[in-house]
């Protein structure tokens, strides 16, 4: 219980590397009660907006508030699904197009809870956690990202 309610830092400076993801997966191979992992990765798109092309997104957060909200959201998800564990990482600072900015990782004995909790957690992160993305274009202009 201690673990699941922990408000540990979800933020990573810069992009989330594929090696970080591999390490997270490898750490779960000694947990013999896990039968399924759900993973969601958000990747920065090199969108063309008019004449301009997105080169990177610069993320910022109200970190103190985000930490508390993540704790609340984790509890909601653990209360709803029989999860064995859940890990969440979000980038701060610059993440270039093609790089990964969000990593949600859920594990359970059978597949349904891991898959459903992962999907719901992604929605909650976008809706409840105070994070802002600033799209930096190749010509050094910018606009503030809007979530759909």
């Amino acid at each position, binding site marked *: 219980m201690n673990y699941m309610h922990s408000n540990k830092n979800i933020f990573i400076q810069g992009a989330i590397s594929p090696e970080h993801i591999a390490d997270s997966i490898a750490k779960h191979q000694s947990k013999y009660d896990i039968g399924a992992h759900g993973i969601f990765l*958000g990747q920065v798109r090199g969108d063309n907006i008019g004449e301009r092309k997105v080169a990177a997104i610069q*993320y*910022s*957060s*109200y970190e*103190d*508030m985000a930490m*508390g909200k993540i704790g609340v959201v984790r509890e909601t998800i653990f209360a709803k699904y029989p999860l064995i564990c859940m890990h969440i990482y*979000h980038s701060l600072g610059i993440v270039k197009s093609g790089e990964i*900015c*969000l990593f949600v990782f859920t594990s359970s004995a059978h597949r349904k809870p891991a898959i459903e909790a992962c999907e719901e957690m*992604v929605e909650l*992160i*976008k*809706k*409840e*956690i*105070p*994070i*802002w*993305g*600033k799209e930096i274009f190749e010509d050094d202009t910018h606009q*503030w*990202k*809007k*979530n759909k």
Partner: protein
Amino acid sequence: MQATIKMFGKLTEITSASSVMIDDVKDTDEVISILQQRYPGLMQLQYIIAVDKEIIHNNTILTDHSIIALLPPYSGG
């Protein structure tokens, strides 16, 4: 009461700062009113208000050390 108001996202471009100080304010309505005078651009922008990391929906009396934050729509992920 002296209040510290943290600004985020696009709002930091209006204030050119990540936080703003206001002296002698008693509640959040007063804070917003003063900010709108100081930064008229704020009236064009969408945001919600948090006091001590909790989102508020009505005018809220400030206490010592209250931390006010103006939060534009989130765009994480």
